[in-house]
């Protein structure tokens, strides 16, 4: 039996992404590819078979020139806590082979490539399209295999992969803490950072333990400008977004015409 996850006390790693800072540069995507041995093909223009653990979407306000505005929205796996915050995230609860699981220590939704048998039920379940299938065997041309990181195993065809919140970095940080005899202290913000947060040149992405008051995300997520994607589905994402633009916020979820983003919280 799994122990019950103590939602308030345990670590719950999460992100706060400030959309008003994001320039759409794509560094987070490339940082993630390099860190996580993400494969690439000669043609990646079909975004529906292109493996991206974080994808930067381009939103626009739909107004004509020159009132047009655009906003970039980086979307990693939301690491959903699931309905009632029990870790039954949409994907974890459906995987028939427990190839993806909710880690009660960190709130991170894992993916075990060697366990996954490629039924893709988790992809059907994830409303964020965070999960990507290996339709092909990955190929690293020329000497490019030499740039593969040993911290993350390359995937084979026929399995699903997704953003892991760079879980290997968490493990490395824990190991380091252990060797430095700090295993009983909570990890510092700098001990464990994701590759995308580190790569983002504008500081758009803040990462940390949402339950740790010493981490910036703890405070940031309470901003009146904070919201989560498709929150109304009850997925309880651990990725928060900030924006002062109402049109952006509106596109982050679905609303009936008479509903206003931000004013629905008490309803659910």
């Amino acid at each position, binding site marked *: 039996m799994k122990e019950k996850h103590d939602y308030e006390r345990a670590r719950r790693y999460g992100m706060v992404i400030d959309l008003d*800072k994001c320039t759409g540069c794509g560094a987070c995507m490339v940082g993630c590819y390099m860190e996580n041995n993400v494969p690439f093909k000669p043609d990646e223009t079909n975004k529906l078979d292109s493996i991206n653990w974080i994808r930067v979407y381009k939103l626009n306000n739909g107004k004509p020139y020159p009132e047009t505005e655009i906003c970039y929205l980086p979307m990693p796996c939301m690491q959903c806590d699931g309905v009632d915050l029990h870790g039954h995230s949409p994907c974890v609860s459906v995987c028939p082979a427990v190839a993806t699981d909710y880690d009660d220590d960190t709130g991170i939704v894992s993916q075990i490539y060697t366990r996954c048998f490629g039924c893709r039920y988790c992809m059907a379940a994830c409303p964020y399209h965070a999960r990507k299938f290996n339709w092909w065997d990955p190929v690293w041309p020329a000497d490019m295999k030499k740039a593969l990181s040993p911290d993350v195993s*390359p995937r084979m065809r026929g399995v699903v992969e997704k953003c892991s919140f760079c879980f290997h970095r968490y493990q490395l940080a824990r190991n380091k803490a252990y060797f430095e005899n700090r295993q009983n202290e909570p990890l510092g913000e700098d001990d464990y950072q994701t590759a995308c947060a580190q790569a983002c040149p504008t500081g758009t992405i803040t990462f940390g333990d949402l339950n740790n008051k010493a981490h910036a995300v703890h405070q940031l997520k309470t901003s009146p400008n904070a919201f989560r994607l498709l929150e109304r589905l009850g997925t309880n994402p651990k990725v928060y977004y900030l924006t002062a633009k109402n049109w952006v916020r509106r596109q982050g979820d679905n609303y009936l015409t008479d509903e206003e983003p931000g004013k629905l919280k008490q309803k659910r």
Partner: protein
Amino acid sequence: MKINRRNFLTYTTAAALGGAAGTLLTPVPWKLMDDAAIWTQNWPWTPVPEAGPVSYKPSICTLCPGGCGIYVRFSGNRPVKIEGMKEHPVNKGALCPMGLSGLQYLYGPDRVRSPLKREGKRGEGKWKKITWDEALAAVTEKLASLRKLEEPQSVACITGMEGGTLPSLIGRFLTVYGSPNLMRQATAQDAGAQAVFLTQGKQGTPGFDIENADFILSFGSGMLDGWGAPGRMSRLFGARNTAQRFIQIEPRLSDTAASANRWIGINPGTEGALALGLAHIIVKESLYNKHFVETFTFGFNDWNDEAGVAHTGFKALLEGYGPENVSRITGIQEALIKSLAREFAGSSRPIAINGRGKGALPGGMNETLAVHALNALMGNINKTGGLYVIPELTYAKWPDLGMDGIASRGMRQPRCDGAGGDLFPNSRFLLNRVPTLINTTKDGSPVEALLVVDANPMYTLPDTAATRKAFERIPFIVSFSSYMDETASYADYILPDHSPLERYQDVPAPAGMSHQVISLAVPVIKPLYDTRHTGDAFIHMAKALGGFIEEAFPWNGYEAFLEDTLQGHWRILKKKGVVEIIETPAASDRFTFNTASAKYEFYPTARAGTGKRDSDVLPAYAPAILDGDEKTFNLILIPCDSIRMAGDHMASSPFMTKTVDDTVLKKQMTLVEINPATALKLNLEEGGKALLKTPKGKASVLIHLYEGIMPGLIAMPRGLGHTAYSEYLANKGTNINELMGPIEDPASGLDMAWGIRAQLFRV
């Protein structure tokens, strides 16, 4: 029981079924099932990266002139990742997608792995591997023979980035060899440098103290699309405080415009007029810095020269740029022009910046001068939050050159691009003019041998067809490229350089920086292939040519040369990787100018000369005459940039291309952006196929409807349409240079093209 055909079948079937059922009771099938699954988990073709101790080596990214500090992460002796260096003054940890994917250049399939000699026809792609001795001997022999013919000036060399000592080393080589024809493709930075020279009399480049400005007015500079030092710019944007205002003026909602506090659409190519229009309001409403203008500038008011001839000043020029007129030219409402001028002038540290997009194109001189004039009106010259001049680095003295008659005569020949001549005395090189000059030479080519270092002119020069025609006429082309780019694949010899992470390179202040920062890129890994530093190659050739040429290169290799050159800096650079020189000019020096008037010249006297009228000298606005007639070509095509794509220096890595949206590139085709209203008139639909025609060429494209572009314009991304490199980049979309031609700025000879007339047909 008799065994016959029928019951034989029956019994074997029964035996087989029984056997199968029996086997199921043994561990065999279960073990096999397990083994099969284990096999899929360890497929031999799925790599298992070797683990090793983790270490980090500091260096500098030299993939673009941005000069970002990096740490290369190693697993054992393998570099596995590049991360930003927090303590580097330029980028403070920020990197762009190109720098982050730097290892793909190191290990990629585009690398030229040994010296190559062309076998088949030019560009056919048939090569013979040769040794370095053979390669260097072949090039040296050609150079020696041209000297023997007393035609050293027929050797030309195109280099890429100007920064660093390698171009100086090559320049020294050419000089002592006897050719003045060292060239580079000019950028907005060159236009800026010329403006600095014309107004302040200084040799150097403009630096913008954006960090400390409180109002940033950008005339189309793609501050977040690759302008200046991209690492620095992204970092600055993220660290921007709420008090800073950032206004972007351009005809298309670029990513920069999207991130600005305000985006103002403007008719393309009319930025110069807007700058003058803003100046008009500022002067008319007396909002300018009177102390500065009265004390330290020249040519603001009308003036009389020594001969007593009356001249118009800048103020008088502005009279023609009232809001009504400027509104008509730029398409910006009068009220907005006025309020923008007031806001600019009302800020304490406003700064005006130009250089469209990444700054890849120089643009017109008058436009640059007009923008600089806005800064001068506010007295924001050489002070916090303003426009600085970064002087050229004065490196250590090298031994004097001894030159023979052939070399001296060669050096006195006019340059093959006309720069520095009577027509364009203030320009140092005009590569954009070379293809036309070669193509219009009656017989032969003024260039007999071309050395291409760190450049890819066959892709980056406007009017690809004309460039190719010109290159066909050059009898001997050598590329020193590390990668199989378009020019390398058209060369006769390739003498591949090490790739960036394998070599030394000094990196001076990147474009736009407000102070001098010298960094040193160091080799973090031994060269993977049979490559050689281009500096070493040139030193080797000099030694082989012998005599005084050899004597001009007393160094035994590039590293020794670099050490000798950087002198005092070398020790610090080797230790710290970076030298930061922040020289805040003393208040008294701040406004010393080296112009004829010893003042900041609104009226650049260096441009004056016989036959020049005041209106030619002052930065008046004159619309660029675009190729093509307006009736047939009823649209205007402009290039657009994105930080996710490399436009020039280097090509995009596979990972960069992977980040490109499917509204930019789809399968192998470029999408062009067009306003839905314009598209409706032309009966074009989202994703539809169309034929794009300009006076220079045509291309098949796909349509992307984009509200953020001015009606009547089409935007095409730069950086696609490579024909060389590997399948990860080649044959994807269209190279905009095939569709655009250069437009010579009458004032400088620089390419002032910002677009071209075009037509779009649904197909």
